[in-house]
């Protein structure tokens, strides 16, 4: 039996195809662009192709993410909060806190010992502390987004970026560049600004060990280190942090599909 979880995020859409042993057979990450429904279908087609399967081979599709309602091929929708929690729990059952930073939102989730969501908090209607914030800053400094993490680890002088409004922070960064601050130090300052924002939100719901970070921003080692410093704890990052929500969705899809196959008593 095969099932698929699809996570439609604001910047990227992810799909994970698993078998009935919960093994990942294939996964895909595609840009969401302007049409979330199309991106969901693209991600779906890609995992099928990689696995050499046809749509009729898939027993259940469960979608999550902000575009979850727009995926016509899905049998059911769940929120990204529930799916990230389940995905993290499957990767490491000892995880009790998940910090997810995606393209346009960030969230902190506290898990029960059973792996269910106990509490959660999300950023309010603002791009501060999200992937979009990093994108804007990378553009302001004319550097590649992907390089920011490693570069920031070389920082030797502490520079503070105090504004949390994305627009104000961009202005602040431009001013720091103009005053000849080292770009590497500025990047580290930006990462600490994100860590302050997201870390405080996570502290609001209570940090319990182990802590896992998911979402695209978890690929930025500078943000991970800044969050570790802020929270005073080590943070686990899975091999592919961007697909944790889709993996959680796939696990729920498998549970639903298996429930459907149990004959009624």
């Amino acid at each position: 039996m095969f099932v698929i979880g699809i996570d439609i995020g604001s910047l990227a859409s992810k799909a994970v195809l698993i078998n009935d042993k919960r093994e990942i057979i294939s996964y895909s990450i595609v840009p969401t662009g302007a049409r979330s429904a199309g991106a969901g279908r693209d991600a779906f087609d890609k995992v099928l192709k990689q696995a050499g399967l046809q749509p009729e081979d898939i027993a259940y599709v469960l979608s999550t993410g902000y575009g979850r309602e727009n995926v016509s091929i899905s049998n059911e929708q769940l929120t990204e909060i529930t799916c990230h929690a389940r995905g993290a729990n499957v990767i490491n059952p000892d995880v009790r806190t998940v910090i997810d930073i995606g393209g346009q939102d960030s969230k902190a989730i506290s898990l029960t010992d059973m792996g269910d969501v106990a509490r959660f908090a999300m950023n309010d209607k603002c791009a501060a502390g999200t992937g979009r914030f990093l994108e804007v800053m990378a553009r302001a400094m004319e550097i590649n987004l992907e390089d920011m993490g490693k570069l920031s680890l070389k920082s030797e002088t502490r520079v503070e970026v105090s504004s949390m409004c994305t627009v104000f922070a961009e202005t602040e960064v431009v001013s720091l560049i103009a005053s000849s601050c080292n770009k590497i130090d500025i990047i580290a300052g930006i990462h600490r600004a994100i860590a302050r924002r997201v870390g405080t939100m996570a502290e609001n719901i209570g940090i319990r060990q182990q802590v896992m970070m998911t979402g695209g921003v978890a690929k930025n080692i500078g943000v991970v280190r800044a969050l570790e410093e802020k929270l005073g704890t080590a943070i686990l990052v899975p091999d592919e942090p961007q697909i944790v929500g889709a993996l959680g969705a796939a696990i729920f899809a498998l549970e639903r599909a298996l429930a459907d196959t149990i004959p009624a008593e």
Partner: protein
Amino acid sequence: MDEKKYLVNRVKTTKEVQSMMIEYYSGLQTAHEEGKFLAWTFGPVPFEILRAMDIRFEHLESYGAYLAARAGQQKLKELSEADGYSNDICSYARLTRGVAILRERGDAAAIPNVLLVDLPDFLVAIRHCPLQGSVYDYQKRLFGKPGFCLDTMPIHSEVEYQESIIYMRRQLEEFIGFLEETTKTKLDFDRLKEIMAYVKEGALIRKRMLNLCKAIPAPINTFDHFISLGPAHTQRGRKESVEFWKRLEAEVEDRVNNKIGSIPNEKYRLYWHNLPIWFRVGRLSETLAKYGAVLVSASYTHEGFYSHEPEKIDPEDPLTSIANEQTWLSWLSSDAIHAADLVQREIEEYSIDGMIMCSHRTCQFVDIGEYDIVDIIGRRTGVPGVVIDADPTDPAFYSDAQTETRLQAFMETLEASKRRSLANQKK
């Protein structure tokens, strides 16, 4: 065209609110023509005294709520912001400033005519919220009109509560002096007693009606109660409002007797903390109903407007009764532990499964302690809560997608918790 189908079975009597409020606002428009004084009021001031002196009053929060529910707030917001009000200032206050600017400019096209109230003869405020007191001070200077602001104290114990009642009662006497001097009319104390008798009768009925929501399924949604808050503020002390509460109680009682629920397939009973989101009352009630969730209690409906011990209202001693109510409201807003105690009582009495804590961006007065209350209640009862970000009247601080994701995630959490508890029972 097909009529839109709603999941929420709204109580029919609340449909009367629309005409009641139109009549009320029309009365504000004709106040000066009829030779009446018109007061603008900031906060839930002692309307009973104004009514006893036949003074018409515009109530800031009812006005903001009414406008926001009809998407009529945008132009007024823009006017106040262009006038220098930051958009971080209380959104109710910005609307009031906007309507003042419209009046001063004689530009009547921006909002429905019935809501274009006249400029005030004087202002009245109560400092339950410090910012509202400041807004009152500013507008009083701007209008160059007289005004009176009742002061309140932060309260954290029964002793402070009793002392504050004495302080409030003394201020009420000064307030009456201010009104008599400003209007050159003596307060008819017998009229005030008569009004307080109606306040008591209405409050007793309303309290019984609120209690009917302890029934399962819940016969009325708290979103319906939100709608009836306009009359609770602006109509109290009138015989007509007592009749309204009687009709509402009868309808809700009939539903209880016939086991008619506010929503189909009630699964979760929820509590709402803080002010409503006036521009999303209908949509949110439908969103929750989709998950089998119904609001059965709220801090704003169940703790204010004389719902605390209405049986103790003494029409023969109106000032002490009013002082009791106003001081109770102060206690509610100044002590998170006290608020948590009350939430816990509601959770137990109304069989509540979860709490929605509404954090209002421009209402810092009520925007404190949500996470503390969630923590306290979680530890005491195990009942979880979710915090949503919004504003009472300003959609600029609200996102449908984010709020609905949080609510859906919360429902998923409740579902998982219910499943776990069933599994444990089977073991």
